[in-house]
């Protein structure tokens, strides 16, 4: 990672460590503190959502690398709020033909300034059961990106839409159900679906890689303090070996995110391959790591009071969104096959 990216990552991490400690997070989960709103305000002041945004839209233009950094750090502290959905939606809008539209352009500016949040279809290919569509996003979201016909996406207006907030296990994000048929379409984003999927995949992978590392670090801290049989439980080989494996898998997960970042954009097999594989492998790994962090905590890991469950629930939601990991691997295999049989080298590392 170059120095500029490292510096931005450091500044985001510092703010989140201050604001989103374990204590603050539990206060939010228990309904005692509106941490999500405070973080959203801070992010607007500090320009977090502008980091990735193309320069033409008033952003810093760091693209997928910026997404990887922001969501990696948000995941590390399991930050509550509508960051993921808002970020994916605004990045898609800014890169689509609809960005020319004055209304859309105003919406992008409003979102970056912290005046609005956005929602996205949690699983764009989900068939609409009982006329209800599942959205990832906050209750007050202004608009949502949902699948249109073919590769098109629709930006729909959520003002006045019949929506209800779902009860989900993950306490750090919120999901809504809406009846899309009753919503006004603000804009059609022609052919924007591959772009949206890649952004969604990278954001989910980054959030999950960060979350896995975050809960692993806290678990290792706990293993150094918690004593049984007269010594810290981290001294037991049966436990420390698992911690070592998890560390390796979180580092590997991080590199998969960067593999995806390096191949983001454009209509190439590599752009269809790596983000999908990153989402699949990283969310799988994060679920394994976070699940074992519950186990490594012992009895307290089974309580709401401690952190592991917060992360486990977050990464399980990440795992299920966009599309099943099995399906993403199939899509990746299609892209890989196309590349290999077409003589296109998608494995080269610059």
């Amino acid at each position: 990672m170059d120095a500029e990216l490292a510096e931005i990552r450091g500044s985001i991490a510092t703010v989140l460590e201050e604001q989103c400690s374990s204590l603050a997070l539990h206060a939010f989960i228990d309904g005692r503190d509106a941490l999500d709103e405070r973080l959203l305000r801070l992010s607007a002041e500090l320009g977090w959502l502008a980091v990735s945004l193309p320069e033409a839209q008033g952003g810093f233009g760091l693209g997928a690398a910026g997404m990887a950094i922001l969501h990696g750090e948000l995941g590390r502290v399991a930050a509550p709020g509508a960051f993921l959905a808002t970020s994916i939606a605004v990045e898609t809008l800014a890169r689509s033909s609809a960005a020319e539209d004055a209304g859309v352009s105003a919406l992008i500016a409003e979102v970056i300034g912290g005046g609005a949040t956005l929602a996205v279809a949690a699983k764009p290919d989900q068939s609409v059961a009982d006329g209800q569509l599942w959205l990832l996003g906050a209750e007050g979201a202004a608009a949502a990106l949902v699948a249109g016909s073919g590769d098109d996406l629709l930006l729909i207006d959520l003002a006045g839409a019949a929506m209800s907030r779902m009860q989900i296990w993950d306490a750090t994000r919120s999901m809504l159900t809406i009846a899309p048929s009753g919503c006004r379409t603000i804009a059609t984003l022609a052919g924007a679906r591959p772009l949206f999927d890649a952004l969604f995949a990278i954001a989910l992978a980054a959030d999950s890689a960060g979350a896995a590392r975050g809960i692993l670090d806290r678990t290792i801290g706990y293993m150094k303090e918690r004593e049984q049989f007269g010594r810290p439980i981290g001294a037991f080989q049966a436990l420390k070996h698992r911690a070592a494996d998890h560390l390796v898998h979180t580092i590997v997960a991080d590199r998969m995110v960067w593999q995806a970042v390096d191949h983001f954009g454009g209509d190439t097999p590599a752009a269809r391959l790596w983000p999908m594989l990153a989402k699949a492998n990283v969310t799988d790994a994060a679920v394994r790591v976070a699940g074992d962090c519950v186990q490594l905590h012992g009895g307290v890991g089974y309580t709401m009071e401690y952190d592991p469950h917060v992360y486990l629930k977050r990464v399980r939601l990440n795992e299920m969104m966009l599309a099943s990991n099995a399906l993403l691997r199939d899509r990746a295999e299609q892209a890989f096959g196309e590349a290999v049989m077409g003589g296109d080298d998608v494995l080269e590392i610059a």
Partner: protein
Amino acid sequence: MIIDLKSDTRAFRSAIRDWVAETLPRDWDAVADRGSEDEHMAYQRWWFGELAKQGLSVPHWPSAYGGADLGITGQMIVADEMARAGAPYLGLYVVTLNHLPGTLIPCGNEAQRARYLPPAAGGVVWCQGFSEPGAGSDLASLRCRAVRDGDHYVINGQKIWSSMSRYAQHCILLVRTSTEGPKQAGISFLIMDMDTPGLDVRPIEQIDGQADFSELFLSDVRIPVENLVGEENGGWKVAQATLASERGLLAFETAERRRHRMEAFYREGRAANAAWLEDDELRRQFMTLLADMQASRRLIRELLHDHENGEPHATTAMAAARIKLFETTLIQRLGDLTTRIEGLEGLDRQPFYSQRYLVGMFDYLNSFGWTISGGSNEIMRNLIAERGLGLPRG
């Protein structure tokens, strides 16, 4: 010689590529597949000789001893081109190319360097006598005894897992010269000629059918005192230099070879409409491993760049331990997958060695050599947990 182009990386790379294409017979590994282990070694010797003519056998060595001071970027180019071409993998020379200079240059004396390094650059094979039946992961507890007798040491004991020792002319040997004080403080480092009387080399048959390594039995083997590397009882420190001498280029080359083999395996499967591509579980597992492979290759590159940038040993040693653990486990998972892909039909004994394709049971069985050797993966986990994560010692 091609090595003369080393300062122009693009010209260097393309000269290697052209030269390999002209020099290496197209069907070399098909020929080698049908050959015996000895014929395979003969092929490696021939290839080493061809590389030497172009200055590419020991380019990373100092020029004073026959090398070309080639930096890590240049070494990566050579390794990458060898992997791309599927050129013979020089397993026979691992100790010769890495551990020998890695020991003698920092820890040997000038007479030893002058005597041993130039012939090694010309293809003399070396092996390593470190592990013993009672000293594996706990290497410092080694017991092979050396007793001073005039200007010789007289050695009695046993060594094990000595790779390529059947083919070697010299051995770097760890012996116990003292039983006083901490066990690390009584170890000495010697150079042994493999034709010394009293040395018996017995091959060990491995689970994959190969016999890369042997057991060494030493009965009153006499080694001149001048063959002591470093100080008497100072061998543990020398051995640390030996073990740190391979800086990731081997992992880089084998990972690059695997990348091309995975691609070829997939291409063949597609071309043949292979059943495994229609099997959801196998096809998806292949894609899972493809992503893992890519992440692992990125980690290996980072390690090499860290070496090049002179990152501290504590940093690179941890990265190397993580790579060893992940990469060798990946090799095993890949062997497991290809074994399942090949199914019953793959359970006939495969040719001993194939560099072009992934080979089910052979690769799978062979992979245990990677997960167990070079510091077993359990030792890697201890290192990562204790030195990396700061978890207390057990």
